[in-house]
Protein backbone atom coordinates (compact mmCIF):
# COMPACT_ATOMS: atom_id res chain seq x y z
CA UNK A 1 0.00 0.00 0.00
CA UNK A 2 1.73 3.17 -1.20
CA UNK A 3 -0.24 6.35 -0.88
CA UNK A 4 0.15 8.95 -3.65
CA UNK A 5 2.44 11.86 -2.83
CA UNK A 6 3.16 15.23 -4.39
CA UNK A 7 5.72 17.93 -3.79
CA UNK A 8 4.70 21.48 -2.96
CA UNK A 9 6.27 24.86 -2.28
CA UNK A 10 9.25 25.34 -4.56
CA UNK A 11 12.36 26.95 -3.12
CA UNK A 12 14.55 26.16 -6.08
CA UNK A 13 13.86 24.38 -9.33
CA UNK A 14 16.22 23.76 -12.19
CA UNK A 15 14.68 21.81 -15.04
CA UNK A 16 18.18 21.43 -16.48
CA UNK A 17 17.41 23.23 -19.70
CA UNK A 18 19.72 26.19 -19.17
CA UNK A 19 23.33 26.29 -17.94
CA UNK A 20 23.91 30.02 -18.14
CA UNK A 21 22.06 33.24 -17.58
CA UNK A 22 20.03 32.02 -14.65
CA UNK A 23 18.77 34.18 -11.81
CA UNK A 24 21.99 33.87 -9.82
CA UNK A 25 24.34 33.43 -12.78
CA UNK A 26 25.65 30.24 -14.35
CA UNK A 27 26.27 26.63 -13.40
CA UNK A 28 29.98 26.84 -12.84
CA UNK A 29 32.70 24.24 -12.74
CA UNK A 30 34.75 24.81 -9.60
CA UNK A 31 36.66 21.55 -9.44
CA UNK A 32 40.13 20.82 -10.75
CA UNK A 33 39.00 20.51 -14.33
CA UNK A 34 37.90 16.92 -14.78
CA UNK A 35 34.82 17.89 -16.77
CA UNK A 36 35.30 17.67 -20.49
CA UNK A 37 32.08 19.48 -21.25
CA UNK A 38 28.70 20.37 -19.94
CA UNK A 39 25.75 20.89 -22.25
CA UNK A 40 21.98 21.00 -22.42
CA UNK A 41 20.46 18.16 -24.40
CA UNK A 42 17.09 18.39 -26.16
CA UNK A 43 16.22 21.43 -24.08
CA UNK A 44 15.61 19.08 -21.14
CA UNK A 45 18.75 17.57 -19.62
CA UNK A 46 22.19 18.58 -18.40
CA UNK A 47 24.73 16.21 -19.92
CA UNK A 48 28.06 16.32 -18.09
CA UNK A 49 30.87 14.62 -20.00
CA UNK A 50 34.03 13.88 -18.10
CA UNK A 51 37.56 12.77 -18.70
CA UNK A 52 39.04 9.64 -17.21
CA UNK A 53 40.36 9.77 -13.67
CA UNK A 54 39.16 9.61 -10.13
CA UNK A 55 39.22 13.34 -9.52
CA UNK A 56 35.74 14.61 -8.71
CA UNK A 57 34.09 16.86 -11.27
CA UNK A 58 31.08 19.01 -10.55
CA UNK A 59 29.07 22.04 -11.48
CA UNK A 60 27.89 24.40 -8.76
CA UNK A 61 24.96 26.75 -8.68
CA UNK A 62 25.28 29.54 -7.93
CA UNK A 63 29.02 29.87 -8.49
CA UNK A 64 30.67 29.14 -5.16
CA UNK A 65 33.27 31.77 -5.94
CA UNK A 66 30.65 34.41 -6.67
CA UNK A 67 28.58 36.68 -4.49
CA UNK A 68 25.23 34.98 -4.92
CA UNK A 69 23.73 32.34 -2.65
CA UNK A 70 20.41 30.48 -2.70
CA UNK A 71 19.72 31.47 0.94
CA UNK A 72 17.14 28.74 1.48
CA UNK A 73 16.26 27.80 5.05
CA UNK A 74 16.12 24.02 5.58
CA UNK A 75 13.47 24.57 8.22
CA UNK A 76 11.16 25.81 5.46
CA UNK A 77 12.50 23.94 2.43
CA UNK A 78 13.00 20.47 3.79
CA UNK A 79 13.18 18.24 0.71
CA UNK A 80 15.28 17.90 -2.40
CA UNK A 81 14.35 15.82 -5.44
CA UNK A 82 16.49 14.96 -8.45
CA UNK A 83 16.50 12.71 -11.50
CA UNK A 84 19.60 11.41 -13.23
CA UNK A 85 21.18 8.68 -15.29
CA UNK A 86 24.73 7.65 -16.12
CA UNK A 87 26.10 6.38 -19.41
CA UNK A 88 27.54 3.30 -17.71
CA UNK A 89 28.03 1.80 -14.28
CA UNK A 90 31.54 3.29 -14.29
CA UNK A 91 30.11 6.79 -14.19
CA UNK A 92 28.77 8.11 -10.90
CA UNK A 93 26.20 10.77 -10.16
CA UNK A 94 26.46 12.59 -6.88
CA UNK A 95 24.69 15.62 -5.40
CA UNK A 96 25.96 17.72 -2.55
CA UNK A 97 24.43 20.72 -0.85
CA UNK A 98 26.69 23.43 0.53
CA UNK A 99 25.45 25.46 3.47
CA UNK A 100 26.21 29.02 4.50
CA UNK A 101 28.91 27.75 6.84
CA UNK A 102 30.73 26.10 3.96
CA UNK A 103 29.79 22.58 5.04
CA UNK A 104 28.36 19.99 2.76
CA UNK A 105 25.51 17.48 2.92
CA UNK A 106 25.74 14.69 0.40
CA UNK A 107 22.12 13.98 -0.46
CA UNK A 108 22.99 11.59 -3.30
CA UNK A 109 26.10 9.50 -2.69
CA UNK A 110 27.97 8.25 -5.76
CA UNK A 111 25.45 6.16 -7.70
CA UNK A 112 25.14 4.69 -11.18
CA UNK A 113 22.00 4.04 -13.19
CA UNK A 114 21.76 3.65 -16.91
CA UNK A 115 18.04 4.39 -16.72
CA UNK A 116 16.64 7.66 -15.43
CA UNK A 117 16.21 7.36 -11.68
CA UNK A 118 14.48 9.74 -9.32
CA UNK A 119 15.59 10.27 -5.77
CA UNK A 120 14.88 12.48 -2.80
CA UNK A 121 16.36 13.40 0.56
CA UNK A 122 15.63 15.52 3.59
CA UNK A 123 17.80 18.59 3.85
CA UNK A 124 19.44 18.70 7.24
CA UNK A 125 22.67 20.54 7.95
CA UNK A 126 22.39 19.89 11.65
CA UNK A 127 22.45 23.59 12.45
CA UNK A 128 20.71 26.81 11.45
CA UNK A 129 22.80 27.32 8.31
CA UNK A 130 21.10 28.12 5.03
CA UNK A 131 21.33 26.19 1.80
CA UNK A 132 23.57 28.27 -0.44
CA UNK A 133 24.85 26.07 -3.29
CA UNK A 134 24.01 22.85 -5.08
CA UNK A 135 26.68 20.69 -6.66
CA UNK A 136 25.96 18.23 -9.46
CA UNK A 137 28.81 15.77 -9.84
CA UNK A 138 30.02 13.66 -12.72
CA UNK A 139 32.43 11.23 -11.14
CA UNK A 140 33.99 8.12 -12.62
CA UNK A 141 36.14 5.14 -11.96
CA UNK A 142 39.83 5.60 -12.80
CA UNK A 143 39.86 4.79 -16.50
CA UNK A 144 36.25 5.54 -17.36
CA UNK A 145 34.90 8.27 -19.53
CA UNK A 146 31.27 8.98 -20.23
CA UNK A 147 28.35 11.14 -19.25
CA UNK A 148 26.15 11.85 -16.29
CA UNK A 149 22.75 13.28 -17.19
CA UNK A 150 20.57 15.29 -14.83
CA UNK A 151 16.89 15.94 -15.61
CA UNK A 152 15.93 18.26 -12.77
CA UNK A 153 16.80 19.39 -9.28
CA UNK A 154 13.96 20.57 -7.05
CA UNK A 155 14.19 21.98 -3.54
CA UNK A 156 10.71 22.17 -2.03
CA UNK A 157 8.97 22.69 1.27
CA UNK A 158 7.87 19.10 1.66
CA UNK A 159 5.72 16.37 0.17
CA UNK A 160 2.04 15.86 0.76
CA UNK A 161 0.71 12.32 1.14
CA UNK A 162 -2.86 11.76 -0.03
CA UNK A 163 -4.79 10.30 2.94
CA UNK A 164 -7.04 8.42 0.51
CA UNK A 165 -8.28 8.24 -3.06
CA UNK A 166 -11.45 6.41 -2.12
CA UNK A 167 -13.50 7.40 -5.13
CA UNK A 168 -10.93 6.17 -7.61
CA UNK A 169 -7.86 7.00 -9.59
CA UNK A 170 -7.27 6.69 -13.29
CA UNK A 171 -3.94 6.68 -15.06
CA UNK A 172 -4.07 7.36 -18.78
CA UNK A 173 -0.76 6.75 -20.60
CA UNK A 174 -1.26 7.92 -24.15
CA UNK A 175 -0.06 6.13 -27.28
CA UNK A 176 2.40 7.96 -29.46
CA UNK A 177 0.22 8.15 -32.53
CA UNK A 178 0.06 11.60 -33.99
CA UNK A 179 -3.60 11.40 -34.89
CA UNK A 180 -3.36 14.23 -37.36
CA UNK A 181 -6.23 14.78 -39.69
CA UNK A 182 -5.81 13.77 -43.34
CA UNK A 183 -4.19 15.01 -45.56
CA UNK A 184 -0.90 14.09 -43.94
CA UNK A 185 2.38 12.71 -45.12
CA UNK A 186 1.47 9.03 -44.83
CA UNK A 187 -1.60 8.29 -42.75
CA UNK A 188 -3.10 10.00 -39.77
CA UNK A 189 -1.32 7.88 -37.19
CA UNK A 190 2.23 7.14 -38.33
CA UNK A 191 3.85 10.51 -37.92
CA UNK A 192 5.73 9.53 -34.75
CA UNK A 193 5.93 13.18 -33.83
CA UNK A 194 5.89 12.61 -30.10
CA UNK A 195 3.29 11.81 -27.52
CA UNK A 196 0.47 13.57 -25.76
CA UNK A 197 0.97 13.94 -22.05
CA UNK A 198 -0.21 11.24 -19.72
CA UNK A 199 -2.93 12.11 -17.23
CA UNK A 200 -3.76 10.86 -13.75
CA UNK A 201 -7.00 11.63 -12.02
CA UNK A 202 -7.88 11.04 -8.40
CA UNK A 203 -11.09 11.46 -6.47
CA UNK A 204 -10.66 11.64 -2.73
CA UNK A 205 -12.86 11.54 0.35
CA UNK A 206 -12.11 14.67 2.37
CA UNK A 207 -14.21 13.45 5.29
CA UNK A 208 -11.69 10.79 6.27
CA UNK A 209 -8.27 12.29 6.72
CA UNK A 210 -5.98 10.06 8.66
CA UNK A 211 -2.81 8.47 7.40
CA UNK A 212 -1.94 5.05 8.77
CA UNK A 213 1.32 6.52 10.03
CA UNK A 214 -0.43 9.11 12.17
CA UNK A 215 -1.02 8.29 15.82
CA UNK A 216 -4.63 7.51 16.69
CA UNK A 217 -4.52 10.03 19.51
CA UNK A 218 -3.53 12.83 17.13
CA UNK A 219 -6.24 15.47 16.81
CA UNK A 220 -5.09 16.76 13.43
CA UNK A 221 -6.62 16.01 10.05
CA UNK A 222 -4.12 14.78 7.48
CA UNK A 223 -5.87 16.63 4.69
CA UNK A 224 -4.30 19.69 6.31
CA UNK A 225 -0.63 20.62 6.61
CA UNK A 226 1.56 19.81 8.39
CA UNK A 227 0.38 16.23 8.39
CA UNK A 228 0.56 13.94 11.41
CA UNK A 229 0.39 16.64 14.09
CA UNK A 230 -2.33 17.84 16.44
CA UNK A 231 -4.88 20.27 15.04
CA UNK A 232 -3.48 23.14 17.07
CA UNK A 233 -0.21 22.93 15.13
CA UNK A 234 -1.77 22.74 11.67
CA UNK A 235 -1.54 25.86 9.57
CA UNK A 236 -3.85 24.95 6.70
CA UNK A 237 -7.31 26.43 7.00
CA UNK A 238 -9.16 24.04 4.72
CA UNK A 239 -8.87 20.37 3.92
CA UNK A 240 -6.95 19.80 0.70
CA UNK A 241 -5.49 23.30 0.87
CA UNK A 242 -2.17 22.05 -0.51
CA UNK A 243 -3.81 21.67 -3.90
CA UNK A 244 -5.06 25.24 -3.80
CA UNK A 245 -1.48 26.22 -2.95
CA UNK A 246 -0.07 24.21 -5.88
CA UNK A 247 -2.71 25.50 -8.25
CA UNK A 248 -2.24 29.11 -7.19
CA UNK A 249 1.54 28.92 -7.57
CA UNK A 250 1.48 27.14 -10.92
CA UNK A 251 2.67 30.35 -12.55
CA UNK A 252 6.06 30.12 -10.84
CA UNK A 253 6.18 26.40 -10.15
CA UNK A 254 6.11 24.73 -13.59
CA UNK A 255 5.59 21.22 -12.28
CA UNK A 256 5.46 19.10 -9.15
CA UNK A 257 6.85 15.62 -8.70
CA UNK A 258 3.87 13.29 -8.48
CA UNK A 259 4.12 9.73 -7.24
CA UNK A 260 0.80 7.96 -7.69
CA UNK A 261 2.02 4.91 -5.82
CA UNK A 262 2.38 3.06 -9.11
CA UNK A 263 3.78 5.69 -11.48
CA UNK A 264 5.82 8.81 -10.90
CA UNK A 265 6.48 11.73 -13.19
CA UNK A 266 6.60 15.51 -13.46
CA UNK A 267 3.03 16.70 -13.32
CA UNK A 268 0.94 19.82 -13.55
CA UNK A 269 -2.25 20.12 -11.54
CA UNK A 270 -5.30 21.15 -13.50
CA UNK A 271 -8.26 22.87 -11.84
CA UNK A 272 -8.95 21.05 -8.56
CA UNK A 273 -12.61 20.55 -7.70
CA UNK A 274 -14.06 20.43 -4.20
CA UNK A 275 -17.64 19.11 -4.54
CA UNK A 276 -19.57 19.09 -1.27
CA UNK A 277 -22.65 16.90 -0.87
CA UNK A 278 -24.74 16.11 2.18
CA UNK A 279 -23.11 12.73 2.68
CA UNK A 280 -19.60 13.39 1.40
CA UNK A 281 -17.15 16.19 0.81
CA UNK A 282 -14.73 15.14 -1.88
CA UNK A 283 -11.83 16.40 -3.93
CA UNK A 284 -11.36 15.73 -7.64
CA UNK A 285 -7.89 16.19 -9.07
CA UNK A 286 -6.50 15.95 -12.56
CA UNK A 287 -2.77 15.89 -13.17
CA UNK A 288 -1.16 16.17 -16.57
CA UNK A 289 2.33 14.99 -17.32
CA UNK A 290 4.93 17.71 -17.85
CA UNK A 291 7.89 17.44 -20.17
CA UNK A 292 10.14 19.82 -22.05
CA UNK A 293 11.22 17.31 -24.65
CA UNK A 294 9.90 14.61 -26.92
CA UNK A 295 9.02 11.47 -25.04
CA UNK A 296 11.00 9.54 -27.62
CA UNK A 297 14.02 10.41 -25.44
CA UNK A 298 12.96 8.01 -22.72
CA UNK A 299 11.57 4.50 -22.46
CA UNK A 300 8.14 4.08 -20.90
CA UNK A 301 9.85 2.56 -17.87
CA UNK A 302 11.92 5.69 -17.38
CA UNK A 303 9.03 7.96 -18.20
CA UNK A 304 6.68 6.59 -15.55
CA UNK A 305 9.01 4.56 -13.36
Amino acid at each position, binding site marked *: *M*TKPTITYGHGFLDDCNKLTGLTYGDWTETDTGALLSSAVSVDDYFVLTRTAGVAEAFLSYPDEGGANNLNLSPSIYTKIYWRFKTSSSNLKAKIMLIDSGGHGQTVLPETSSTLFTVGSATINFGDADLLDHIRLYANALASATGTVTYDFVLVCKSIFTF*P*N*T*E*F*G*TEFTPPPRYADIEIPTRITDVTQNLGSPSATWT*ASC*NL*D*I*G*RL*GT*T*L*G*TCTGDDWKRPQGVDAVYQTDFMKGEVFVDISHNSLTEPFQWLNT*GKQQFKATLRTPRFPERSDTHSLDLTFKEYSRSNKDNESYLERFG
Partner: protein
Amino acid sequence: MDKAILGYCRVGYFRIGVFNDQWDRLLQQFQSLGSCDVTRRRLQLDYPRDSTTGWWTKSFEETTIEMPIIQKGSSHSLLPPGTYVRTDALGLTADVVVEGDEILFNSAYYEVEAVRPYYFLDGFSYRECDLTLLPFKNVSGVDYTTSTVEDARYRNKVYLETYLSATALPNFIVAYSEPDYPMVRVFNEKGVDLVISLGEHTSDSLIDSDHYPFGYKEHVPITTLCINKINIAGTKLMHQAETELRRVAETYPLGSLRALGARRPQTKRLGSLTLYSAEYMMEYQRDST
Protein backbone atom coordinates in the same frame (compact mmCIF):
# COMPACT_ATOMS: atom_id res chain seq x y z
CA MET B 1 -35.15 -13.07 58.83
CA ASP B 2 -38.54 -11.55 58.16
CA LYS B 3 -41.49 -13.37 59.70
CA ALA B 4 -45.14 -12.71 59.19
CA ILE B 5 -46.99 -11.66 62.34
CA LEU B 6 -50.55 -12.89 62.28
CA GLY B 7 -51.42 -10.87 65.37
CA TYR B 8 -50.25 -9.85 68.82
CA CYS B 9 -51.56 -8.72 72.20
CA ARG B 10 -50.10 -6.90 75.21
CA VAL B 11 -49.77 -8.37 78.69
CA GLY B 12 -48.41 -5.63 80.94
CA TYR B 13 -45.06 -4.66 79.54
CA PHE B 14 -44.92 -7.75 77.37
CA ARG B 15 -46.13 -8.23 73.86
CA ILE B 16 -47.16 -11.70 72.79
CA GLY B 17 -47.11 -12.31 69.02
CA VAL B 18 -48.62 -15.03 66.94
CA PHE B 19 -46.40 -15.73 63.96
CA ASN B 20 -47.00 -17.49 60.69
CA ASP B 21 -44.57 -20.41 60.93
CA GLN B 22 -45.21 -21.86 57.48
CA TRP B 23 -41.66 -21.04 56.42
CA ASP B 24 -40.14 -22.38 59.66
CA ARG B 25 -41.85 -25.69 59.25
CA LEU B 26 -40.81 -25.92 55.60
CA LEU B 27 -37.23 -25.05 56.45
CA GLN B 28 -37.13 -27.59 59.28
CA GLN B 29 -38.21 -30.29 56.88
CA PHE B 30 -35.38 -29.39 54.48
CA GLN B 31 -32.90 -29.13 57.37
CA SER B 32 -33.85 -32.62 58.52
CA LEU B 33 -32.28 -33.77 55.25
CA GLY B 34 -29.12 -31.66 55.51
CA SER B 35 -27.73 -28.17 55.93
CA CYS B 36 -29.49 -25.35 54.07
CA ASP B 37 -26.77 -22.79 54.73
CA VAL B 38 -25.50 -21.01 51.61
CA THR B 39 -23.37 -17.92 51.10
CA ARG B 40 -25.21 -14.88 49.88
CA ARG B 41 -22.91 -12.55 47.96
CA ARG B 42 -24.66 -9.22 48.16
CA LEU B 43 -24.04 -7.19 45.00
CA GLN B 44 -22.81 -3.68 45.77
CA LEU B 45 -22.39 -0.91 43.23
CA ASP B 46 -20.55 1.42 45.58
CA TYR B 47 -17.38 1.91 43.54
CA PRO B 48 -17.00 4.55 40.79
CA ARG B 49 -18.16 3.73 37.29
CA ASP B 50 -15.66 2.26 34.83
CA SER B 51 -14.32 5.08 32.66
CA THR B 52 -14.64 3.02 29.48
CA THR B 53 -17.91 1.13 29.83
CA GLY B 54 -19.69 3.47 32.21
CA TRP B 55 -20.70 0.47 34.27
CA TRP B 56 -20.49 0.53 38.04
CA THR B 57 -17.72 -1.65 39.34
CA LYS B 58 -19.18 -4.61 41.14
CA SER B 59 -18.20 -5.83 44.59
CA PHE B 60 -19.79 -8.43 46.86
CA GLU B 61 -20.38 -8.70 50.59
CA GLU B 62 -20.70 -12.28 51.85
CA THR B 63 -23.10 -13.47 54.56
CA THR B 64 -24.52 -16.88 55.39
CA ILE B 65 -28.25 -17.36 54.88
CA GLU B 66 -30.66 -20.28 54.91
CA MET B 67 -31.79 -21.22 51.44
CA PRO B 68 -32.79 -24.72 50.34
CA ILE B 69 -31.81 -25.06 46.68
CA ILE B 70 -33.56 -27.35 44.23
CA GLN B 71 -31.76 -28.10 40.97
CA LYS B 72 -33.40 -28.01 37.57
CA GLY B 73 -34.73 -31.40 36.47
CA SER B 74 -35.36 -32.54 40.03
CA SER B 75 -38.61 -32.55 41.97
CA HIS B 76 -39.00 -32.55 45.68
CA SER B 77 -41.91 -33.69 47.79
CA LEU B 78 -41.24 -30.87 50.24
CA LEU B 79 -41.83 -28.13 47.65
CA PRO B 80 -44.98 -26.12 48.21
CA PRO B 81 -47.70 -26.80 45.61
CA GLY B 82 -47.20 -24.91 42.35
CA THR B 83 -43.51 -24.34 42.93
CA TYR B 84 -41.20 -25.45 40.17
CA VAL B 85 -37.70 -24.75 38.92
CA ARG B 86 -37.74 -22.19 36.10
CA THR B 87 -34.01 -21.67 35.50
CA ASP B 88 -30.95 -23.67 36.58
CA ALA B 89 -32.05 -23.85 40.18
CA LEU B 90 -34.64 -22.54 42.59
CA GLY B 91 -33.84 -21.14 46.02
CA LEU B 92 -36.32 -20.65 48.83
CA THR B 93 -35.49 -18.26 51.62
CA ALA B 94 -36.95 -15.88 54.12
CA ASP B 95 -33.72 -13.89 54.17
CA VAL B 96 -33.23 -10.77 52.09
CA VAL B 97 -31.99 -11.57 48.59
CA VAL B 98 -32.27 -9.22 45.62
CA GLU B 99 -31.73 -9.49 41.91
CA GLY B 100 -28.08 -9.41 40.96
CA ASP B 101 -26.89 -11.09 44.16
CA GLU B 102 -24.91 -14.29 43.90
CA ILE B 103 -25.42 -17.50 45.83
CA LEU B 104 -22.46 -19.76 46.58
CA PHE B 105 -23.60 -23.30 47.17
CA ASN B 106 -21.60 -26.51 46.96
CA SER B 107 -18.71 -24.57 45.33
CA ALA B 108 -20.99 -23.46 42.54
CA TYR B 109 -21.93 -19.84 41.92
CA TYR B 110 -25.44 -18.83 40.95
CA GLU B 111 -26.79 -15.43 40.02
CA VAL B 112 -30.16 -14.39 41.37
CA GLU B 113 -32.22 -13.64 38.26
CA ALA B 114 -35.61 -13.00 39.84
CA VAL B 115 -37.05 -12.82 43.31
CA ARG B 116 -40.73 -13.50 43.97
CA PRO B 117 -41.95 -12.87 47.55
CA TYR B 118 -44.78 -15.06 48.82
CA TYR B 119 -47.27 -13.91 51.40
CA PHE B 120 -49.69 -15.74 53.63
CA LEU B 121 -52.67 -13.45 53.93
CA ASP B 122 -51.06 -10.06 54.60
CA GLY B 123 -47.91 -11.53 56.12
CA PHE B 124 -44.64 -12.29 54.39
CA SER B 125 -43.85 -15.99 54.18
CA TYR B 126 -40.72 -16.58 52.05
CA ARG B 127 -39.01 -15.69 48.76
CA GLU B 128 -38.72 -17.85 45.69
CA CYS B 129 -35.46 -17.08 43.83
CA ASP B 130 -34.67 -18.10 40.26
CA LEU B 131 -30.98 -18.93 40.11
CA THR B 132 -28.73 -19.13 37.04
CA LEU B 133 -25.54 -21.15 37.24
CA LEU B 134 -22.35 -19.15 36.59
CA PRO B 135 -20.12 -21.86 35.10
CA PHE B 136 -17.20 -19.50 34.37
CA LYS B 137 -17.13 -17.67 37.67
CA ASN B 138 -13.55 -17.06 38.79
CA VAL B 139 -12.11 -18.35 35.51
CA SER B 140 -9.16 -16.17 34.50
CA GLY B 141 -7.25 -15.68 31.24
CA VAL B 142 -4.00 -14.09 30.17
CA ASP B 143 -3.44 -10.35 30.25
CA TYR B 144 -4.02 -8.43 27.01
CA THR B 145 -2.65 -5.07 26.04
CA THR B 146 -5.47 -2.65 25.41
CA SER B 147 -5.90 -1.86 21.72
CA THR B 148 -4.91 1.63 20.70
CA VAL B 149 -7.91 1.72 18.36
CA GLU B 150 -10.84 2.90 20.41
CA ASP B 151 -14.15 1.07 20.57
CA ALA B 152 -16.89 2.73 18.50
CA ARG B 153 -19.05 2.72 21.61
CA TYR B 154 -16.35 4.49 23.60
CA ARG B 155 -15.87 7.17 20.94
CA ASN B 156 -19.59 7.90 21.00
CA LYS B 157 -19.70 7.74 24.78
CA VAL B 158 -17.02 10.43 24.97
CA TYR B 159 -18.87 12.44 22.31
CA LEU B 160 -22.18 12.29 24.18
CA GLU B 161 -20.67 12.91 27.61
CA THR B 162 -18.85 15.91 26.20
CA TYR B 163 -21.84 17.56 24.56
CA LEU B 164 -25.03 16.41 26.33
CA SER B 165 -26.32 19.18 28.55
CA ALA B 166 -26.59 18.52 32.28
CA THR B 167 -29.15 21.30 32.37
CA ALA B 168 -31.45 19.62 29.89
CA LEU B 169 -30.83 16.17 31.38
CA PRO B 170 -29.83 16.62 35.00
CA ASN B 171 -29.62 12.98 36.08
CA PHE B 172 -28.46 10.69 33.31
CA ILE B 173 -25.63 8.30 32.59
CA VAL B 174 -24.06 7.18 29.31
CA ALA B 175 -22.90 3.57 29.41
CA TYR B 176 -22.39 0.51 27.24
CA SER B 177 -25.44 -1.71 26.92
CA GLU B 178 -25.75 -5.12 28.57
CA PRO B 179 -24.19 -4.33 31.95
CA ASP B 180 -23.53 -7.44 34.04
CA TYR B 181 -25.99 -6.37 36.73
CA PRO B 182 -29.76 -5.81 36.61
CA MET B 183 -30.98 -2.46 35.29
CA VAL B 184 -33.41 -2.27 38.18
CA ARG B 185 -30.41 -1.52 40.40
CA VAL B 186 -29.56 1.51 38.27
CA PHE B 187 -33.02 3.07 38.43
CA ASN B 188 -33.67 2.10 42.02
CA GLU B 189 -30.50 1.85 44.05
CA LYS B 190 -28.42 4.36 42.06
CA GLY B 191 -31.33 6.73 41.52
CA VAL B 192 -30.58 7.40 37.86
CA ASP B 193 -33.48 8.88 35.86
CA LEU B 194 -32.25 8.26 32.33
CA VAL B 195 -29.83 5.76 30.86
CA ILE B 196 -28.32 6.43 27.43
CA SER B 197 -27.08 3.05 26.40
CA LEU B 198 -24.55 2.36 23.63
CA GLY B 199 -25.09 -0.92 21.86
CA GLU B 200 -22.64 -2.90 19.82
CA HIS B 201 -21.98 -1.37 16.43
CA THR B 202 -22.20 -2.76 12.95
CA SER B 203 -19.62 -1.55 10.49
CA ASP B 204 -18.55 -1.44 6.85
CA SER B 205 -15.01 -0.93 5.59
CA LEU B 206 -14.12 2.15 3.57
CA ILE B 207 -11.90 0.78 0.82
CA ASP B 208 -9.34 2.98 -0.89
CA SER B 209 -8.78 2.83 -4.62
CA ASP B 210 -5.74 0.61 -4.00
CA HIS B 211 -8.05 -1.97 -2.36
CA TYR B 212 -6.70 -1.32 1.13
CA PRO B 213 -9.21 -0.30 3.82
CA PHE B 214 -8.51 3.14 5.22
CA GLY B 215 -11.52 3.70 7.42
CA TYR B 216 -14.83 2.38 8.64
CA LYS B 217 -18.43 3.45 8.45
CA GLU B 218 -20.00 2.43 11.72
CA HIS B 219 -23.54 2.35 12.98
CA VAL B 220 -23.78 2.61 16.74
CA PRO B 221 -27.20 2.01 18.33
CA ILE B 222 -27.96 4.54 21.06
CA THR B 223 -30.88 3.59 23.28
CA THR B 224 -32.59 5.84 25.80
CA LEU B 225 -34.16 4.08 28.79
CA CYS B 226 -36.31 5.64 31.51
CA ILE B 227 -39.27 4.84 33.73
CA ASN B 228 -42.10 6.66 35.42
CA LYS B 229 -41.19 8.11 38.79
CA ILE B 230 -43.20 10.17 41.25
CA ASN B 231 -42.40 13.42 39.49
CA ILE B 232 -41.25 12.07 36.12
CA ALA B 233 -43.41 11.00 33.22
CA GLY B 234 -41.19 8.53 31.43
CA THR B 235 -42.64 9.28 28.02
CA LYS B 236 -41.86 12.99 28.44
CA LEU B 237 -38.32 12.29 29.63
CA MET B 238 -37.80 10.02 26.62
CA HIS B 239 -38.75 12.90 24.33
CA GLN B 240 -36.53 15.29 26.27
CA ALA B 241 -33.63 12.89 25.70
CA GLU B 242 -34.40 12.70 21.99
CA THR B 243 -34.45 16.50 21.71
CA GLU B 244 -31.08 16.69 23.43
CA LEU B 245 -29.55 13.94 21.27
CA ARG B 246 -30.75 15.76 18.17
CA ARG B 247 -29.34 19.04 19.42
CA VAL B 248 -25.93 17.46 19.91
CA ALA B 249 -26.00 15.79 16.49
CA GLU B 250 -27.15 19.01 14.83
CA THR B 251 -24.52 21.12 16.56
CA TYR B 252 -21.52 18.81 16.37
CA PRO B 253 -21.72 16.69 13.19
CA LEU B 254 -18.07 17.18 12.29
CA GLY B 255 -14.90 15.55 13.54
CA SER B 256 -15.62 11.94 12.81
CA LEU B 257 -18.66 12.92 10.70
CA ARG B 258 -21.66 11.79 12.72
CA ALA B 259 -25.34 11.81 11.83
CA LEU B 260 -28.27 10.65 13.93
CA GLY B 261 -30.02 8.12 11.71
CA ALA B 262 -33.14 6.02 12.04
CA ARG B 263 -35.21 6.06 15.24
CA ARG B 264 -36.90 2.88 16.43
CA PRO B 265 -39.43 2.89 19.27
CA GLN B 266 -38.54 0.29 21.89
CA THR B 267 -40.96 1.03 24.73
CA LYS B 268 -41.99 -2.16 26.52
CA ARG B 269 -44.49 -2.98 29.22
CA LEU B 270 -42.84 -5.35 31.71
CA GLY B 271 -45.62 -6.39 34.03
CA SER B 272 -46.51 -3.31 36.01
CA LEU B 273 -43.45 -1.44 34.75
CA THR B 274 -43.33 0.52 31.53
CA LEU B 275 -39.78 0.91 30.26
CA TYR B 276 -39.79 3.93 27.97
CA SER B 277 -37.16 3.44 25.34
CA ALA B 278 -36.15 4.46 21.83
CA GLU B 279 -33.18 3.39 19.75
CA TYR B 280 -31.34 5.82 17.46
CA MET B 281 -28.71 4.73 14.99
CA MET B 282 -25.66 6.97 15.08
CA GLU B 283 -24.09 6.86 11.63
CA TYR B 284 -20.42 7.47 12.04
CA GLN B 285 -17.29 7.46 9.89
CA ARG B 286 -13.88 6.91 11.33
CA ASP B 287 -10.37 6.36 10.08
CA SER B 288 -8.54 3.12 10.71
CA THR B 289 -6.64 4.49 13.70
